[in-house]
């Protein structure tokens, strides 16, 4: 069963741009790619969703290449409060979360 693949952890410093890439080789034609953020003791929170090319909102950008086999979440100028686990979610027959990327932002 195909799964998404993300780096397990990343470190960054305040003010830097952070890019987290997710691989999803068997994504279905009609499915979207969604990213969620999760803080300890809370449920995941929707960040951004896209189908192809680039999507931008007030908190992040999502880059999706033409083959859609991967996606990159970009967080501009991170702060300490961006320390969290980030998941990408695609529908690959079943609704599967990736293992998540634990982002640690340091001062």
């Amino acid at each position: 069963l195909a799964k998404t693949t993300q780096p397990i952890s990343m470190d960054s410093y305040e003010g830097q741009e952070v890019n987290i890439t997710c691989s999803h080789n068997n994504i279905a034609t009609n499915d979207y790619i969604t990213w969620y953020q999760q803080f300890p003791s809370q449920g995941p929170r929707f960040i951004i969703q896209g189908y192809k090319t680039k999507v931008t909102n007030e908190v992040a950008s999502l880059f999706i290449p033409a083959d859609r086999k991967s996606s990159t979440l970009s967080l501009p100028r991170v702060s300490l409060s961006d320390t969290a686990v980030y998941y990408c979610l695609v529908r690959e027959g079943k609704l599967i979360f990736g293992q998540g990327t634990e982002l640690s932002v340091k001062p």
Partner: protein
Amino acid sequence: EAGVAQSPRYKIIEKRQSVAFWCNPISGHATLYWYQQILGQGPKLLIQFQNNGVVDDSQLPKDRFSAERLKGVDSTLKIQPAKLEDSAVYLCASSYGGFNYGYTFGSGTRLTVV
């Protein structure tokens, strides 16, 4: 807009006891999901409802887990009897439609089985 409500927030039970969790989704959201999140892992889908019908329950351990969504609104998830490995956070989420709509998650119920 009110969020997804879950209760209780925490629950501690002994193994072989039973437990039930309750979820009230966002008004108008037809699709409801229950996820299990073990510490250090991503959420795992247990069951998906569309209105009051089950869409996917392939990962629900049906010998001990059951779920219902009467009248297509609130939902309950039950475990009977509980095992030590059921210790996890149980998350409820809802959305307007299928996967291509974003989910809204509740804060979850943290279950500890001792």
